[in-house]
């Protein structure tokens, strides 16, 4: 294999690369990723149009949108980040709430009968995974719950922060921590079903986890404008509402 041949091979491979697709890109908060797959299927079935999903934590996606990432719709885990984008002129219309999330306490090896927030303060639990409360609404809610139930002082030293809901789920499902807080939509997903036990946290202990989406700005000439708008409206349709409900959103 001489050097010319290697170059030739490379140029053939590169020549075969396609142009960037003209599918619309939906930036999706980690807790919504599994639901979004189903919404993607349903949207394709109804309209024949494909969407592309980019998953990340809401904070990271917002930073990327601010710096001009080529996303068309942003489906956030909270209302703060989309509002931030709207204030900075990233959209022509205000963000709208599409669902309210539920917080769960989830453990790989603690049986459901023993699982409660009280167990977190005991010897049985050495580490507790929480999404980073600074930039993840479910993490913020988890800290509110611990404080409201006067468990925060006893558990603060045990807390481990995942950078997003997905990484926190990884810590819990691999058993790296004994227990942790997460989104109901994650434990109900096909990927995480049967990985341990969970209880739904009484939502009176934290502020409601309202999740908003926002249609990002497009120029009038943009070929994606029409399909992005169509998808954004589909998010608030009855069909989508049913799918969100199935994944534990209110």
């Amino acid at each position, binding site marked *: 294999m001489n050097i010319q041949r290697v170059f030739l091979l490379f140029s053939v491979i590169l020549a075969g690369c396609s142009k960037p697709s003209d599918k619309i890109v939906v930036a999706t908060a980690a807790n919504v990723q599994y639901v979004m797959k189903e919404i993607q299927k349903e949207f394709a079935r109804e309209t024949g149009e494909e969407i592309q999903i980019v998953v990340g934590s809401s904070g990271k996606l917002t*930073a990327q949108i601010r710096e001009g990432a080529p996303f068309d719709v942003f489906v956030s885990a909270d209302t703060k980040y989309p509002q931030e984008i709207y204030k900075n002129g990233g959209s022509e219309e205000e963000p709208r709430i599409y669902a309210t999330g539920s917080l769960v306490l989830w453990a790989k090896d603690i049986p459901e009968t023993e699982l409660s927030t009280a167990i977190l303060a005991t010897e049985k639990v050495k580490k507790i995974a929480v999404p980073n409360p600074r930039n993840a609404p479910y993490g913020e809610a988890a800290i509110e719950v611990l404080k409201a139930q006067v468990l925060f002082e006893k558990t603060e030293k045990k807390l481990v922060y995942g950078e997003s809901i997905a990484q926190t789920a990884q810590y819990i499902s691999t058993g790296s921590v004994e227990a942790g807080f997460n989104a109901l939509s994650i434990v109900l997903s096909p990927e995480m079903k049967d990985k341990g036990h969970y209880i739904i946290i009484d939502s009176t202990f934290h502020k409601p986890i309202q999740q908003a989406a926002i249609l990002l700005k497009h120029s009038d000439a943009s070929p994606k404008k029409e399909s992005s708008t169509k998808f954004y409206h589909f998010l608030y349709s009855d069909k989508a509402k049913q799918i969100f409900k199935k994944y534990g959103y209110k």
Partner: protein
Amino acid sequence: MDWQPLWLTFRLASITSVILLVMAMPVAYWLAFGKFKGRGVVEAIIGMPLVLPPSVIGFYLLLAFSPSYWFGAWIEKVLGMRLVFSFPGLVIASILYSLPFMVYPIRAGLQSLPSSLREASYTLGKSEWTTFYKVLLPNCKPAILTAFVLTFAHTVGEFGVVLMIGGNIPGVTKVASVAIYNEVEALNYPAANQYAMVLFAITFVILLLVYSINNRLLRVRQSS
């Protein structure tokens, strides 16, 4: 500005570099002068962290350190400690992650010494160990310094592995590179910028020092 993440980064880099310096010496010597079969395999394994994505190292370490898997369970039983989400865990991860940065420069330094040095020492009845310690090592100071500093700087720049197994605990595993990432996520660019500037300046100064010291050492050697 919170200095804790920066302090933690430098503690991690210092401890990792010192441990690796001791560990890498025999490995580098063995690779430089040892005669054994399967040399290529050993070299490939040591060089892996150079080319593997940190996410791969991080992912496997997360599984290895987790009490749900045999290694993590065994460590927890024997030592009563959990490596995932702990500072010792980060040190072990960094040792793996920076291993080639310590081994390769030292090996190259040893190999570049004239073989007459070793032979003269053996002829004068010195043991292999004395020869290594008293003759060879003092003669490859620039290589050792380079290895140490590259290891230190590489560990300062560690991000992916720490993000995977650190759990972002302030004062324990929240190093500067992760702190920058958090500040950007929280849309707090001024704070991210402060951390980034400090890291940028410090790494530049370190490398500048090394290269100027090395150049001086080499000049001394050439003129003598």
